């Protein structure tokens, strides 16, 4: 920088030093400190509406358990063959059980996954509300 240019700039320097500093808003310190609260404290459910997703997920789980119990233990369509043959009847019973259990397991698994997704979504939305409110 040549001397002339340097002198030209120096005349602004004092003014710049005086003007550059800004003051942070007074609430800034508290807002930063409030964000430091531990995020692992137990989740508090404050209202009934917050509880609804959990109730729904729980209900769905119970319903799927009931469905599994009914489909597994109801044997209404099982009939004794005209000519009794132990090995044949055992085989048909196993086939029936396998069919019933196979289908209900699929439904059960689907409903359990949906329940988990709902509970997870509910937990996340409640956690985020708690952390940023």
């Amino acid at each position, binding site marked *: *920088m040549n001397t002339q240019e340097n002198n030209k700039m120096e005349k602004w320097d004092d*003014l*710049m030093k005086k003007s550059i500093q800004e*003051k942070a808003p007074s609430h*800034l310190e508290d807002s930063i400190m409030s*964000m430091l609260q531990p995020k692992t404290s137990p989740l508090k459910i404050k209202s009934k509406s917050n509880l609804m997703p959990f109730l729904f997920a729980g209900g769905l789980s119970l319903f799927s358990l009931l469905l599994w119990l009914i489909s597994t233990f109801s044997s209404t369509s099982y009939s004794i063959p005209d000519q009794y043959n132990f090995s044949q009847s055992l085989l048909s019973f196993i086939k029936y059980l396998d069919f019933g259990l196979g289908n209900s397991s699929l439904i059960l698994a689907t409903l359990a996954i949906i329940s988990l997704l709902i509970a997870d979504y509910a937990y996340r939305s409640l956690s985020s509300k708690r952390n940023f409110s």
Partner: protein
Amino acid sequence: MMISDQELIAKICGGDNEAFRLLITRYQNFAFTIAIRVTGDSMEAEEVVQDSFLKAHQSLNSFRGDSKFSTWFYRIVVNFALSSKRKNTLQTKPLEESNLEFEDLAGDSDKSEKEALVNKAIATLNAKDAGIITLYYMEDLSLEEIGKIMDMSHSNAKVSIFRARQRLGSILKELFEKNGLLV
């Protein structure tokens, strides 16, 4: 006697949140100054400062003390401010509008007419120049420290400061002449 940054950091790492409050008190004005000069918007600057302190709090354990805490922390602030500015440039406001915002802010804090013009001049610089000019005038930082904060070499920092000061000088000259003021 004033407690040093290193002592405060040791206390914070030991879980003392009140020590962190002291650190905030010590650096919030500097951090806010950098953030507002780079972003040109007070709300955005507040967010930048909050994010910077939170990031510093999370990463204090990895701060090895090779450089001063202020250098390390200002680098976080500058990075957050520049990326916030980049993000918000996508939803660009007209230049006049953003300058007006800065002018209003200056008016709020009882700045003199000359100081308001300085604010306006800095707001017309690009984000990186505004950052480097702020660091140059704000504290007695060495060229090496400014280089570390801005992620550039010592010589690049020197050249960048020279160019930014030149640009600022010509903007200020124009603004002062336009408003019939003498330096």
